[in-house]
């Protein structure tokens, strides 16, 4: 099972490194072959909102960067995991640029936000933003993605619990 893991290399913290290590270990134990992309602000162009990747040349972005390469190969992944810092309840700009450009597996996407000072409202905003409208609840692009899960980690203990929850679903 090929699994893609994308994370924000400009926002590494002890918490995110611990999460990455635990997550990779959990997935590998479950038989996933994990391919990791660590991307930074200068690696990733933002989505222009042109929709040409959905219409004129499906699956191909007008921005010819690493994200376009990931997107072209998206069908080979049965799951995509994103690790993103959370600011104001939103993913980082780098990770938003990756996610907004259709890099997620159509089967299963897991979006994990992290940050030690995320407050409850930001946590709730992040969860709603990433789950409420996606997967089966997507009314704008129904049927595009099958399953989208979201978690927020504010501590090493949260990391452990998230990986424990994923251990059940990653099999």
């Amino acid at each position, binding site marked *: 099972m090929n699994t893609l893991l994308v994370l924000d290399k400009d926002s590494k913290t002890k918490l995110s490194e611990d999460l990455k290590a635990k997550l990779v270990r959990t997935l590998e134990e479950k038989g996933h072959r994990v391919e990791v992309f660590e991307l930074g*602000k200068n690696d*990733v*162009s*933002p*989505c*222009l*909102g*042109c*929709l*040409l990747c*959905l*219409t*004129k040349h499906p699956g191909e972005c*007008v*921005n010819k960067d690493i994200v376009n390469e990931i997107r072209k190969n998206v069908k080979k992944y049965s799951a995509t995991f994103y690790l993103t810092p959370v*600011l*104001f*309840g*939103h*993913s*980082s*700009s*780098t990770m*938003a*640029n990756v*996610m*907004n450009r259709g890099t997620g597996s159509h089967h299963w996407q897991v979006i994990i936000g992290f940050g030690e000072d995320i407050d409850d*409202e*930001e946590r709730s*905003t992040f969860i*709603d*933003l990433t789950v*409420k*409208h*996606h997967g089966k609840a997507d*009314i*704008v692009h129904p049927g595009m993605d099958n399953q989208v899960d979201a978690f927020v980690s504010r501590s090493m203990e949260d990391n452990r619990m998230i990986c424990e929850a994923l251990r059940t679903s990653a099999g």
Partner: protein
Amino acid sequence: MKSVCIVNGSLRGKKASSLQFLKDLSLRLPDAEYSKTFLTVKAKVKENYPEDMLSSLARADAIVFVFPLHNYGLPGALMRLLEDYHKYLRTGREYKKGTKVYVIVNCAFPRPGETTGEAVRVIRNFCRRLSLDWRFAVCIGTGPVVVATKGIPFLYPRLKKAYAEIASDVRGGDSERRSDYLIKPVIPESIIAMIKRHYERTGQMIEKNTTPEQA
């Protein structure tokens, strides 16, 4: 005179619906009464957004974010501006606490009440974190359709009222909470779906040959 910073959060250049809404709002903010600064997000930023852009936000009495909904959230380029502004303020730069903040968000879906809520919450969280004065949002369904039909008289009285209310609220001193405006297109959803399909199929969503460097 009140200083108003209006941020265009779209990368679609002259074809952006956000730009049209921004211009319409600007008409309600006459130069004699308001000192306006216009900022546009960038596709490529070297290190951080330039200091003059960030200081314009810091000096403003009011900030209006005008942007398209991306994946139910903020466009990455706008999120980058918020990140850089947050970082800029954390270095101890002076800024006006209590700056009034407004949002005009447009989405591709005809029912803005069902799609724009989380993006607005992100801006509210931004205000709470920075002690800014969140005021209200104008959430527009099917932005391109509203832009294409807004010239027809009497179609969008609530949108005009929303612009007028932003102008009066920036000028006025009351702190009463305002409700968000939800603007739905007047054209039936089935016709919108047909227009959307044509619009997407013919690739009219962006100026031809626009690359990140040119945007």
